[in-house]
């Protein structure tokens, strides 16, 4: 029996595994992931990871930036814990070998980032997530006791009597379905950007963990808060990191005008100014784009309206030294060179602020079930995450969840209940059905596209009550249709069509919670902007949305108060001081 079973081999999952292996080598720990760990989406993170290290910065300032950036929806005790532990985590990564970029004297270098008042973002050129993930992965290889299940896809949590007992998973290589008993399970499955049509997220980001927890009775929190990143490449959705703006890049409209000055984000200055203009928070920048578009000041491309990111004045040397990957991506995927050309960009779905509801140790209301990383919502991101807070978050809370799960496993030594077998057998039957050939249903891709467009139409940057209500109906109906989806592939070996179908069903569950929460929140806050309720309403909604799955599968939304410690809600001010 596995003591700690970690679902997900991204940054959060691997950090949790290391925490268990380093604190209590007597426990058995396993990492199960639908892709090889180093393929996880953490690998794509570019810009950096925030943590207070230096002169002139303070923990309180990082807290304040995070809380105001999150439009006061963050739990402030969580933010304080996060900010306090982030530096230690990044130094730990350094000790494990992460190639952080350096100052000439050999200390770790930091750069500015959107919404941050101080320079506190550590970076490894502009492949921070890549280096972080490979460092973590290679460090886990030091511990042969960390068992890996690579390319196994979890389809269900085994829950009995309010407590988790393991998972059911398919080994993709053989198609074998197995019930894997475990004393604790940590979900570290990442976000679900793929529920939207245009996203920076990899194809594996399908919200599986959120759906698993939700179906197992654990509530999801703040699902309506979906972050649009202001600068994605138009066709692919590939992200141009915020670091490009932090290094001095400008956003201009089709007339070459730095339009952010029209949206209460400060006055343009030649050099980047912290918490101002291009270094404002992502929600505000993405919203500004929509207004520009309405004013007809965006340029048209076959892939929709765009504005431009101008890096030309930075010069080739600075681009190559600080953001070489941006240049590489532009050259390979957009056939242009940022040293001489403008980069067309548009807002793109990037990150889920919401996720599985957990406490500060990653524990969910289901005993033995933990969650960490983007799939969880400890609530440090509130209504809008600040760039470069997510990488330290997956480390801090990955570690905390690992330690808490280890403690739970040490103190709960019961054997395997019969539910493990019986639920495993049921799930095996269900999966066999998902793989049975059905020649006349609709294709997975067709259903997926319909879901994506429904979600974008209703839960995009701006949302309206009537559209959301209609979308809720469409999504419920799509869930039914997905049960009868067409299946061409009946093979057991590496059946990606079946995996795609299971992912679609997970995304549909998650999409319904997004719409339900968005419908319920009758105010505008951070990334959630209601056209019919355009202002923030602290009286009614200074609270998290908490959504449970009703027995008939519909989401039922309630509210949970926000924890406020030292920073009473105030106005979000950028570019004015």
């Amino acid at each position: 029996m596995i003591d700690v079973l970690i679902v997900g081999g991204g940054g959060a999952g691997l950090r949790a595994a290391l925490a268990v292996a380093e604190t209590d080598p007597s426990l058995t720990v396993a990492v199960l992931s639908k892709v090889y760990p180093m393929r996880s989406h953490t690998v794509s993170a570019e810009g950096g990871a925030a943590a207070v290290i230096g002169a002139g910065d303070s923990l309180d300032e990082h807290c304040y930036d995070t809380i105001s950036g999150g439009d006061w929806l963050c739990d402030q005790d969580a933010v304080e814990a996060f900010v306090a532990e982030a530096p230690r985590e990044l130094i730990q990564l350094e000790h494990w070998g992460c190639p952080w970029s350096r100052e000439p004297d050999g200390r770790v270098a930091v750069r500015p980032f959107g919404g941050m008042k101080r320079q506190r973002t550590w970076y490894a050129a502009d492949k921070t997530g890549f280096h972080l993930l490979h460092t973590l992965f290679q460090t886990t290889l030091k511990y042969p006791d960390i068992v890996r299940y690579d390319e196994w896809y979890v389809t269900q949590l085994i829950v009995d009597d309010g407590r988790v007992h393991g998972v059911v998973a398919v080994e993709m290589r053989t198609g074998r379905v197995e019930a894997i008993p475990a004393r604790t399970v940590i979900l570290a499955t990442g976000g679900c950007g793929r529920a939207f049509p245009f996203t920076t997220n990899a194809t594996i980001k399908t919200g599986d963990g959120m759906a698993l927890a939700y179906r197992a009775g654990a509530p999801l929190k703040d699902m309506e808060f979906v972050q649009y990143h202001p600068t994605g490449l138009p066709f692919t959705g590939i992200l141009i990191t915020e670091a490009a703006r932090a290094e001095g890049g400008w956003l201009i409209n089709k007339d070459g005008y730095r339009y952010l000055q029209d949206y209460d984000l400060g006055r343009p200055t030649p050099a980047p100014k912290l918490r101002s203009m291009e270094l404002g928070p992502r929600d505000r920048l993405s919203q500004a784009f929509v207004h520009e578009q309405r004013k007809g000041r965006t340029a048209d491309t076959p892939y929709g309206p765009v504005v431009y990111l101008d890096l030309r004045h930075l010069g080739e040397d600075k681009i190559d030294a600080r953001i070489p990957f941006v240049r590489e991506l532009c050259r390979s995927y957009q056939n242009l060179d940022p040293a001489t050309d403008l980069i067309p960009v548009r807002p793109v779905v990037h990150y889920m602020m919401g996720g599985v509801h957990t406490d500060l140790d990653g524990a969910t209301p289901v005993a033995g079930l933990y969650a960490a990383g983007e799939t969880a919502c400890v609530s440090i991101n509130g209504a809008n995450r600040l760039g470069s807070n997510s990488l330290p978050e997956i480390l801090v809370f990955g570690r905390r969840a690992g330690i808490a799960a280890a403690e739970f496993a040490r103190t709960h030594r019961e054997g395997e209940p019969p539910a493990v077998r019986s639920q495993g057998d049921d799930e095996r039957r269900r999966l066999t059905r998902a793989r049975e050939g059905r020649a006349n249903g609709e294709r997975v891709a067709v259903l997926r596209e319909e879901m994506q467009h429904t979600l974008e139409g209703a839960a995009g940057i701006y949302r309206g009550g009537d559209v959301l209500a209609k979308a809720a109906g469409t999504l419920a109906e799509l869930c039914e249709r997905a049960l009868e989806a067409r299946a061409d592939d009946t093979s057991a070996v590496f059946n990606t069509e079946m995996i795609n179908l299971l992912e679609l069903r997970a995304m549909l569950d998650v999409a319904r919670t997004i719409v339900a929460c968005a419908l319920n929140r009758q105010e505008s806050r951070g990334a959630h902007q209601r056209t019919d309720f355009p202002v923030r309403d602290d009286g009614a909604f200074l609270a998290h949305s908490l959504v449970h799955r009703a027995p008939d599968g519909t989401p039922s939304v309630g509210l949970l108060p926000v924890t406020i410690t030292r920073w009473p809600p105030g106005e979000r001010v950028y570019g004015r001081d």
Partner: protein
Amino acid sequence: MTESIRLEVARYRPGQDAEPVFASYEVPLMPDWAVLDGLTYVKDRLDGTLSFRWSCRMGICGSCGMTVNGEPRLTCGTFLTEYGDGPVRIEPLKGFPVIRDLVVDIEDFLAKLSSVRPWLVRGGEELPLTAEYAQTPAQLDAYKQYSMCINCMLCYSACPVYVLDPDFLGPAAIALAQRYNLDSRDMDDRFDVLSQEDAVWGCTFVGECTNACPKHVDPAEAIQRYKLTAALRSVLPWSRR
């Protein structure tokens, strides 16, 4: 009407095919479509049974390596328009067992990677978690290139030595060992695993690994440099670092 291009895709369905066979699909030839976009088009609209791996579609996760018209390539970064009127022949990476269609078995590499101790080795000395080890930009540069490996396996597929002899430790694993050897914070030199007949001495400097590498890691250089290190260490036993 949009133009189209033909993809000839190797299919291998274990239990059904004794060896790979080619299937042909017509896909639209869009100016900004990568080979991978062609494959997802096939999977989404033409034939749901085609299996292949991909994830980030931005050249960083390392999962989409395949053989395209005979060359190992990342399919998310290789454009259909490079192949004129086509057809484009897409096969699994050569040199690896084929699990199904375009999916190959890379377990062998993972075992090799673990064997070179790809982690920072500190001989006992550890700083507390309040301070970082100092490393100047020049010291960072000394190994940075070798840390760029995305484990995409194109170099293995391009290396005839590996394809002929799967016991060869191979380019990426050695480059990653060098990534740590050359890191000023590391105190190991991994001589025991690297100076082996099947490790650096197996490489005959074909150099194709470096040509194939999409991330400019230059594994060929990493290996030749280690040969010199290992040779000097053998001749001058006191020259350990």
